[in-house]
Structures are given as C-alpha cells and as structure tokens.
C-alpha cells in the first residue's frame, strides 16, 4: 500500500516537473508562442466559416444541428493545435535520433516510452493552459453558447474520452517514431501518417460524411478514437449504447496500442543506432 502511494507520489512529482518543462518549452520563443495562438484563432475561424457555409448549402446532409457542427469544428481546431500532433513524439524521436542526442534520453532511469509520454504530456498540458484555454475563451466570447458541450454529462464524458484519445495518439506517434529508428528517415512515413490521421481521425471531416466502405474502415481502425469519438460525445451526437460502444472501441484499441508500443520498443531497442561519435 505504502509503496503504491510512493509510486503515485513519484508519478505526480514527475508529471509536475514535466509540466514545468512544457511551460518552459512553450514560452521559450516568444514569437513562436504568439504565432501558435494566432494559428489557433485562424484555424478556428476557418473551421467555423467552412461548416457554416456548408450547412447553409445543404442542411439536410448534417446529422447534427448547425451549432453542434460549429462546436465540433471549434473544439477540433483547438484540440489539434493544443496536441500539436504533427510535431508529437514521432517528431521528437526523429529529431533526437538524427542529432544523436537520443543518448540523453536513454541515460535516464525511466523507461523510454514513459519518458516521452511524460514530456509530451507536459508540453500538451502547458499548451492547453497557454493556448487552448485562451482560444476557447475567445471563441466562446465571439460565438456564445454554440461552442458549449451538449450537456454537463456530455462534457465530462468528452473529457474522459479525450484522455483516452491522448494516450492513443501518443502510442500511434511513438510507433511511427520507431519506424524512424529503423529507416533513419522520417519524412515519407510522417506524410503518410499525417494523411491517415487527417482523414480517418475525423479531425477535419466527421465520419458521418464518409461513403459506406470508407466509413466501415474508419470505424474499425483506431484513428476515429482520437478525434471523432470525443468530439461526437462533446456535441451530443453520441449517446446511450452507441456512446458506450465507442468508448469500448477506444479502450480496447488503447490496450492493443500499449502492448504494441511495449513490444516494438523491446525489439527496436536492440537495433538502436546512435548517430555520431
């Protein structure tokens, strides 16, 4: 029991340290911070304009109301900026491998995947505080109640679902990062991964609009759990049994992905090559 408390205490200390790291990282370059905030605002604006326009053209094509669709777009734009998923753990691994500074990470007394997870959690939490909250506040001021979740429960479940989605995204990016260790080249794999994620996660286009075969594929694969599931819960489109199944889909995939991460790291570790003397 007390050892469990000690372990939890240790994780809390670590996470707090990495949160500070994230805040340092987010504020290290002043211009980059303001650009990040500005990008987020532009993206939110673009999503809102696009969905409003499409809604005006063909309202009967949407399974949700206009304000639900706006909320979907706003939260999608903000969360994706907060997660910075195109520069996630895979990017970090590639960067550190290419410079050879990956040695620094391997010297620490924590498992490598967990360390990356802690770093990324710290960065994302800092981005949530420094970019996500102001951006959402701004959107709420401009758009009013349209950006609010469908209800208190929907909001809470969406947060829960986002937590799972965060871990899923980490695992996927980590696995992509390991491909870099093998090929020592990120760009090709990265473009493919980003394409797949943009399309199949529902971050840009909700899966409602997919043609049947593509929808089937997207439903089975893990990626919809990353944006589509939490966002659909947030706007209240997913409820009842469908919601439970969607959460189950997320959790099962997360379990599989964690196993995959462990296995892949155990294998790749033996082949790790450190560039440079």
């Amino acid at each position, binding site marked *: 029991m007390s050892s469990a408390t000690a372990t939890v205490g*240790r994780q809390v*200390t*670590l996470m*707090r*340290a*990495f949160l*500070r*790291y994230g805040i*340092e*990282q987010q504020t*290290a*370059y002043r211009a980059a911070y303001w650009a990040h905030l500005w990008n987020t605002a532009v993206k939110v604006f673009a999503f809102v304009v696009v969905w409003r326009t499409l809604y005006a053209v063909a309202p009967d094509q949407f399974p949700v109301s206009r304000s639900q669709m706006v909320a979907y777009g706003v939260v999608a734009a903000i969360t994706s900026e907060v997660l910075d998923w195109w520069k996630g753990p895979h990017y970090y691994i590639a960067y550190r491998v290419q*410079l*050879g*500074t990956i*040695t*620094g990470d*391997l*010297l*620490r*007394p*924590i*498992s490598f995947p967990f360390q990356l997870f802690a770093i990324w959690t710290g960065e994302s939490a800092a981005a949530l505080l420094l970019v996500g909250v102001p951006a959402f506040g701004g959107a709420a001021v401009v758009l009013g109640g349209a950006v609010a979740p469908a209800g208190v429960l929907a909001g809470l479940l969406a947060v829960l679902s986002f937590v799972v989605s965060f871990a899923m995204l980490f695992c996927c990016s980590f696995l992509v990062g390991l491909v870099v260790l093998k090929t020592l080249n990120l760009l090709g794999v990265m473009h493919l991964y980003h394409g797949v994620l943009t399309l199949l996660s529902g971050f840009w286009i909700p899966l409602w609009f997919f043609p049947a075969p593509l929808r089937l594929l997207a439903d089975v694969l893990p990626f919809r759990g990353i944006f589509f599931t939490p966002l659909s819960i947030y706007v209240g489109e997913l409820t009842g049994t469908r919601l439970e199944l969607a959460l189950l889909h997320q959790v099962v995939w997360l379990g599989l992905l964690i196993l995959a991460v462990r296995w892949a790291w155990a294998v790749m*570790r*033996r082949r*790790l*090559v*450190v560039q*440079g*003397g």
Partner: protein
Amino acid sequence: MALIEVRELSKAFRVRRPGSGARAKVARMFHPAYETRQAVDGVSFDIDGGEIVGYLGANGAGKSTTVKCLAGILVPDGGTVRVAGLDPVRERIRLARRIGVVFGQKTALWWDLPVAETFTLLRAIYEVPPDRYRTTLDTLTELLGLADLLHIPVRQLSLGQRVRADLAAAFLHGPDVLFLDEPTIGLDAMVKSNVRRFIKDIRTASGVTVLLTTHDLADLEQLCDRLVIIDRGRVLFAGSVEETLHRFAPYVRVMVEFAEDIAGSVRVPQARATATADGRHLTLEVPRGDGAAAAVTSYLLDRFPVRDLRLTDPSIEDVVRVLYEGASGAPDEPAHV
C-alpha cells in the same frame, strides 16, 4: 570484484553501402547493399572502485561505442559487461541511477530549458532527496562556476559552459561511476584545467569511479591512474600512465626555428631529429625527465641563432601510432641537420 567488468565486448554497425555513380545509387534504393563495420572487437578490461581510467585510441578506434555499450545505450553483439554489478542492457534503468555520463560533443540536456530548470527536472527524474540535492547543487555550482549560468537556456551556452552544465547534470544524483567521453574537447586551457580539477576533487570527495576518453595527453597525465589503449576495436595495451608514457612516448618535442640557414652544422646530444623541413627548421625528440629538455634547449640557445623555440608533448596519436607500429621510440643517435 571489479566495479566495471568488460569481457570480450563486441559491437558491429551495419551500414548501407551507397553505389558509386548515379545509376548504382538509384539501384541501391531498391536493392540495398550492406556492409558491417566492426567498431568494437573483443575488448576486455576491469576497473576497480575509485579508479580514474583513461580510455584512448585514435579516431574511430571504438571508444565512444564502448562507452555507449557500458552505459546501456547500445546493445552489444557479444561479450559480457557488468557495471556496478548490473547488466547494462537488462538492468538499464537500475544502472542509470548509478552512473553519470557526459558526451563532450553532444549535450544530454534539454535544449530550450534553462540550466536551473534542467537540474530541477533531473532531481525529479532521479528522485534526489531535497536536502542532498541542495548540498550537491551548491558544491557543483561552486566547483564548476555555474552561478551565472543557471538562468540561461542550454541552447545559449557556449561549448565550455555547456560541458560544465553537462558535468554537473551527470553528477547531480551522486553516481558511483562516471563515463566521460571527451569531456575536454574544444575547451580553452582555463576551462580544461577547471574540468580536470573538478574530476579530481569529486573523485577525492566521493570516491567515484571514472572512465575517461580523451585525445589530450595532459588529461591523462594529470588525471588518470591507469590507461587502456585500443585500436580498431581491440585492446592494445593496458597499464599505468607512467608505464605507457615511459614505453611509448618517452620524449618531449622541441621545435626550433633558426634565424639563418645552418644546414649540416647542428649536432645536439641527447636528442633525436624527427623532422627537418629545411635548413631553418628542426624538430627534436628529447627524453622525458632528468632535465634533458632543459639541457637541449640551453644547448641550442647557446650555440645557434634561434628565432623561435617550442616544447610540446607528444600527442596521443603519436602514442597510438608508436604502439601500433610496435616501435620502441628510444632516442639512439644524436640529432643533426
């Protein structure tokens, strides 16, 4: 039992061989050809607790690769390694708490983090108790002169400042073993001597064991109790610094430039000429100790119109070359131009 035990360690890298010529290069994209490069080839040595051991060899000899295997960063192909009784591969995380590692050429710190923030993060990662952390940090700040650097992000540090921060970071958790891979590379004389003093002091104070790679003979002379010399992945020689220098580099170099051409007229007792570019320049090897260098210098200054005279230590490259060629290097005949 030795604190570090290395037996028949070997590690090869598989590298893609690019074709020569554009066509072959494109073809290799489809059918890659590989070759293996044996970086470490059956290395064995022991290091006892509290020793400072210099690990040296020419560029590409396999020093850094060995260090990476000992630190658990690379997985060896063969042989066994024990550091503080632990297997670096299977017990990497436990080992990480007991070792500190510095690679002079690249930092193990986080680029955008101020030095102080880096230390705070390391404290959390290594779970250093707060009071011990304070005293260690104070000592390190003092010994390495870090007080003015603490608020600066790592990316803005100069090389010498960064190496000092790296050294402090490697020692913050009180490791039993330090692996230092060229910690003095590219540092100015002042910082070099600070770093050396730091290593010496920290060893005296904490009894830490140090494995040090370097190309600087002065590092070895001032710091190391013992040397292990490798070449092309194999151990060539292991022994004390005195033994090594005595055997393989028992001389000091005297480089003289004369004010006028004095071809054919110089004879210097106790010295051996190694290189004579022309009638104005002369390089002599003079035996170490017994005041031979002083005797030769004053001999030259007394008898010849000397414009410039410099004394240098033989470099580690010389030692390695001598070792590799198996030459004895003892001065035999007097030098003359």
